[in-house]
């Protein structure tokens, strides 16, 4: 109860609300103007020259989360599905790396992770069908560092699916995933709970 109260108090004190425009605290993270070298060193996709196909139609102009610069995004094509429009953008940010996936029916999902965690393969997000959250088809989208050629997704019913990595990105639609295994160069196998 104490933590609940503290969380509520902290949120109400620090965060926005209907009248929060009067006292909103904005923590500004400066938008990056170039791909940070440490990010380019870990993810070759961010090192390659920009292509015309990298540009995405922003839902609104401006910076992405945590200083992400949409103009520096590198975009890869993935299969279209009922959940995604079929592209994944890797967007460098200020000490963070972001993924952006446009929904099939408009809008876009962003998810970012610190560079350190992204290097360890923890930049993974999921798109799930509308309605109640339950075991079902999910679109897993993740970023892995250079040298990882495939990840293994384990799912319900003992299914194990090897998903190829292209340009540091993997993307797979799978029923009720429960773990993702990644063999990271230099640090061996890692297994994470799937979304």
């Amino acid at each position, binding site marked *: 109860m104490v933590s609940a109260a503290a969380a509520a108090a*902290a949120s109400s004190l*620090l965060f926005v*609300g209907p009248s929060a425009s009067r006292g909103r605290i904005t923590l500004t993270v400066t938008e990056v103007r170039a791909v940070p070298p440490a990010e380019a060193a870990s993810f070759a996709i961010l090192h390659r020259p920009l292509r015309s196909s990298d540009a995405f139609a922003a839902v609104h102009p401006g910076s992405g989360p945590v200083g992400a610069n949409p103009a520096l995004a590198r975009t890869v094509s993935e299969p279209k599905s009922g959940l995604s429009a079929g592209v994944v953008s890797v967007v460098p940010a200020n000490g963070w790396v972001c993924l952006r996936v446009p929904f099939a029916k408009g809008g876009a999902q962003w998810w970012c992770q610190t560079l350190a965690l992204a290097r360890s393969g923890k930049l993974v997000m999921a798109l799930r069908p509308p309605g109640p959250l339950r075991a079902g088809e999910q679109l897993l989208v993740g970023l892995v560092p250079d040298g990882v050629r495939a990840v293994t997704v384990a799912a319900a019913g003992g299914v194990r699916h090897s998903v190829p990595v292209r340009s540091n990105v993997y993307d797979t639609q799978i029923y009720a995933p429960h773990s993702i295994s990644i063999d990271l160069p230099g640090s061996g196998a890692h297994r994470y709970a799937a979304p």
Partner: protein
Amino acid sequence: MSHHLVHRARSTRALLLTFAIVGALLGVLLASQGAAGYGVNYCAGWSSSGSRCEGPSHTLTANFAYDDTGSNAYVCETATNSSGNSVGGWGCGYGYAESCYAGNQLLHGWVANGSPYWLYINGTEYYSQGCP
């Protein structure tokens, strides 16, 4: 023995308090980026695994869900229009989730607990500005 238990309970409570505050601050950091404009907090509270909560109606440009316990647990968010149809399905991530919307129709934001645990979840709807 009872003194030991009291001390231990206090330590656990302090740890949870720390998680909650760190989580709240992280939520502020993440949710205040890329979506400047007016925001409305909603559905702040404890949430059981798989449960979801609907926010108020606005011309949303962004919707956030974040885990205020700071445990980096899996949370999801989506938005539905006035007919109850979802715009894009659920987006889920560890610790927080964020989606951008066109801002050209009234939408309700939703948050959901995608983790196997109880979480203290917060939602924030943004409108008027931001979110590429």
